[in-house]
Each structure stands twice: as structure tokens, then as C-alpha cells.
């Protein structure tokens, strides 16, 4: 084994510590890369891989981090979001991890990123064909709550036997009058595999359909990688008499007046005051900078 030398990072003025580029050793990256290629070839199918321990807890998206580490190159520009925000502890930690181990450029602007790692949201800004969206996935198996045995779920996928999932959704309708699932709403990919889109709000599901970007999903604890190639049909499961519908918000964003975007509730005081604002902070900030003002917003030129 001669050619498997690690690249000596850093290349310039930092202390003389040898990192593997993007933390993972080359053999691990190759294994993950092979899993990614098979995941792309069989859209929506969960490819098992030998996940590695990462220097962060599982809840922090180790699966997504490993996928990002395997695809990342020196010319990439990385964006990391958590619940739509670039500045949460989790997003800041992951961004810092790759700044340090891969020395890649980072950004908060969706349009400037080549790789976007995300937990719980798809950006509001439309993605383009040169982007890779990497999802952090806690539970990759959409059938897990219906059938706990891995051997059984694997067979159900092999047979495309998804009746259980339809029964579950239909029970929702019987009980609530509508499908109550609002997060991790199951999708059928390219007319074949039923897939868990990770705990994004179902509001984001339509963005997965015919998306020009490549979508990769990494589950660290359960050691699964799956993918949606660009321009692939992604259909949210539904019924003829109960078609899939996304959440609808009564009012525009209180800060930037955006409509047709996913809003978070923000508590303003202990007297019940609250407002609804964009969950995608980059999108909201960009709109405010462009001069859009919501009912509780401050015009950009007046802001401190």
C-alpha cells in the first residue's frame, strides 16, 4: 500500500499537525464514496455502509458529516444549516469542523454554496444543478415504526410492499380527518422506493421533486446512505380522496413579508406576544437587505 498516503494538512502556516483531509482517512472515504455511487444508481434505496466514529455526538449529524467529508474537495464552498439557520450551535460546530479539517471556504448564502449540509430544512432559494444537498438523517427507515425488524423492512422494500405505510397514513385520516404527519413525511422516489426524507417539514417535500441539485442522505447511527439524483420524481404518499397538501401560513413573515415560505413561531414576551418569521435565516436576511419589510420588521436603512 503505497499510494494511500494522507495529504499533509495544513499546507501553509498552521502548526505542524497532520490531518486527514476532511478528517476521514482515505480508505473510509473510498468506502463511503462507493456507497454514494450505488445510492445514486438505485434512487431511494438505503445503502449500508461502515460508519465511523466522528468527534461529535450522533445527534449532531455524524451521517451527514461523513457524506460531506467524502464528497468535499478543496474548491468547494460549504454551507451548513440547522432548522434553517446558519448560526445555531450545531451548524457553527460542523462548519468549523470542515473549515479546520478541510480548509474549505464557507458561506451562509445558499446561492454561493456548492455543498449544503442540512438538518431539518431545504433552503427556500431554489437550488441549482451544481449543488449537492447533504441531509443529516436520524432514522433512515420509513417503515421502522411499523415494522421494527430490519430483515422484515428490507424484504418489504425488496418487494415494494408498502401497504403498511398506506394503512398508517389512512389511519391518520380516519382519526384526524387528514394525514397528521407533518415532519419526515414519506415519499416515493422514481416510482420505486419509499424513503424517509429526514425530519424536514412536509412543506419542503415538493422541493425534492425534480430538484436540479443532487440530494444525498447520511444516517450515522443506523449506517445508511441514500440519494435522489437531480430531476427525479419524488412523490409524497397520498390518496386520491386525500391528496398531499403542504402547511399553509395565514400571514407573511413578520420581518421580510415573504409568503410561500416556511415560518417559525417566535415568542416575543411572556404575555403571549409572538410572531412568525422565516425559518430560513439566510433567505430572510437577504430579503430584508433588499428592502422587504414585514409588519414587525425595521426598514434596512434604519437598522442599527
Amino acid at each position: 500500500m503505497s499510494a494511500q498516503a494522507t495529504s499533509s494538512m495544513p499546507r501553509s502556516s498552521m502548526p505542524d499537525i497532520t490531518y486527514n483531509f476532511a478528517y476521514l482517512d482515505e480508505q473510509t472515504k473510498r468506502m463511503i464514496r462507493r456507497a454514494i455511487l450505488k445510492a445514486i444508481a438505485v434512487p431511494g434505496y438505503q445503502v449500508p455502509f461502515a460508519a465511523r466514529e466522528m468527534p461529535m455526538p450522533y445527534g449532531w449529524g455524524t451521517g451527514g458529516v461523513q457524506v460531506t467529508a467524502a464528497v468535499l474537495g478543496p474548491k468547494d464552498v460549504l454551507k451548513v444549516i440547522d432548522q434553517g439557520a446558519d448560526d445555531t450551535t450545531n451548524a457553527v460546530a460542523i462548519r468549523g469542523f470542515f473549515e479546520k479539517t478541510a480548509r474549505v471556504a464557507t458561506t451562509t448564502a445558499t446561492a454561493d454554496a456548492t455543498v449544503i449540509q442540512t438538518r431539518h430544512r431545504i433552503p427556500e432559494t431554489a437550488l441549482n444543478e451544481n449543488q449537492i444537498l447533504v441531509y443529516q438523517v436520524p432514522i433512515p427507515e420509513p417503515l421502522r415504526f411499523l415494522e421494527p425488524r430490519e430483515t422484515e423492512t428490507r424484504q418489504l422494500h425488496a418487494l415494494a410492499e408498502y401497504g403498511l405505510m398506506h394503512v398508517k397514513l389512512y389511519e391518520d385520516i380516519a382519526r384526524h380527518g387528514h394525514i397528521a404527519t407533518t415532519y419526515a413525511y414519506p415519499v416515493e422516489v422514481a416510482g420505486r422506493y419509499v424513503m424517509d426524507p429526514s425530519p424536514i417539514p412536509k412543506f419542503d417535500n415538493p422541493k425534492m421533486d425534480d430538484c436540479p441539485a443532487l440530494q444525498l442522505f447520511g444516517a450515522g447511527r443506523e449506517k445508511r446512505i441514500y440519494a435522489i439524483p437531480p430531476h427525479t420524481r419524488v412523490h409524497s404518499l397520498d390518496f386520491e380522496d386525500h391528496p398531499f397538501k403542504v402547511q399553509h401560513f395565514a400571514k407573511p413573515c413578520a420581518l421580510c413579508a415573504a409568503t410561500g415560505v416556511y415560518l417559525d413561531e417566535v415568542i416575543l414576551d411572556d404575555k403571549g406576544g409572538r410572531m412568525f418569521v422565516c425559518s430560513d435565516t439566510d433567505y430572510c436576511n437577504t430579503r430584508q437587505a433588499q428592502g422587504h419589510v414585514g409588519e414587525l420588521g425595521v426598514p434596512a436603512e434604519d437598522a442599527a
Partner: protein
Amino acid sequence: MSHPAAAALSAGFDDPVFDAQASFRAAMWALARPGRVERLDARLAPPAPLLPEAAALALALCDYETPIWLDAPLAAAPAVGAFLRFHTGAPIVEEPGAARFALIADPRGLNDFTAFPQGSPDYPDASVTLILQVESFGKSDLVLEGPGIKGTAGFGAAPLPVDFVARMAANRALFPRGVDLLLAGAGGVAGLPRSVFVKEG
């Protein structure tokens, strides 16, 4: 490099980390956008008849976990097997059915796909990736459709097996089982994953 055989062998990647990453990314986009030729800047001089582009994919993707099968023209050149073993650590296997990667210098003489692992219903990923060496891309005499393609896309590469369209149709009919193809040469790589529908143009 202190390995005694090193002097007799062609060099591997200049930069094992970044060249492997770039080669992988080319293969990744190639499979994600079937038929679109991705640029593959293979700075390698492997022993003939192994092409630099195919060698770059093998060095980026293969290791001791991935047995490689070589077609007759490649197997007939001992330097090719030695090069691959040395730079990847992958075992070279005689049986196509044991291969995770297969390197094909002469696509016209390619074995039937069924000679290679096609995955199982439970584990469709346990299948071969075929790396076909081609001389050129262009002359879109095929039409592709499927995941990764907006509408349809024209595609052409040469040489390909004469019964290529029929083979790809049989491969698609097996989905989610099947083999995945990377076509490498002429400074690029194109992907034809098992999900693609291939028709005569």
C-alpha cells in the same frame, strides 16, 4: 517510495487525496446525470492498454475490499494487474462473478452482464460497477431517460457492444438489481446507472 517493485511501476496519482476526490466527483456527477460527459483530468500514465481515465477511476474507488476483474486485453498485459494491485491493494480476480469492479478495454467483446454480480433483491447495491474504456463520446445515436435526466438526453460513445441497447433494456428490467456502467476515455467519464432507459435515437 521504498517498495522494491516501485521503480518498475508507473506512478499513481500525483496527489492521492485530491486526485482521488476529483476523480470520484467526476464519477459521482456522471452517474447522477446519466449520459452527460464529466471532465476527468487523469494525470496518470498507466501501462497499456489501460487508459488514464479508467486508471483514475480504479485508483479513486478500489481497494482491498473491491475485487477487480480485467477483460482479456487487460489481463493479457501483466503490467496492468501489477499496477492496479500496487496502487489500490485490490485483488485481481479471474471470475467475473467475484468482481466489484470490472475494467473493460474492449467493450465490443464485453461478457454478458449476467456474468457479473447484479445485487440481490435485499441488497441491490451488492453489484458490479463496469468501467468501459471508450475512444470517444459524441454522435448522439442513443436516447436516455430516467432519474438524473430532465426529459430525455442524447448520448453516444464508441466503441460499445453491438447489442448495447438490448443489454441495457435487460439490465433496466432487473431494476433495482442490475449493473452500473462508467464509460471512461477521451478526457471524460459518463455514467449509465441501472436506473437509465436506453433507446435507439
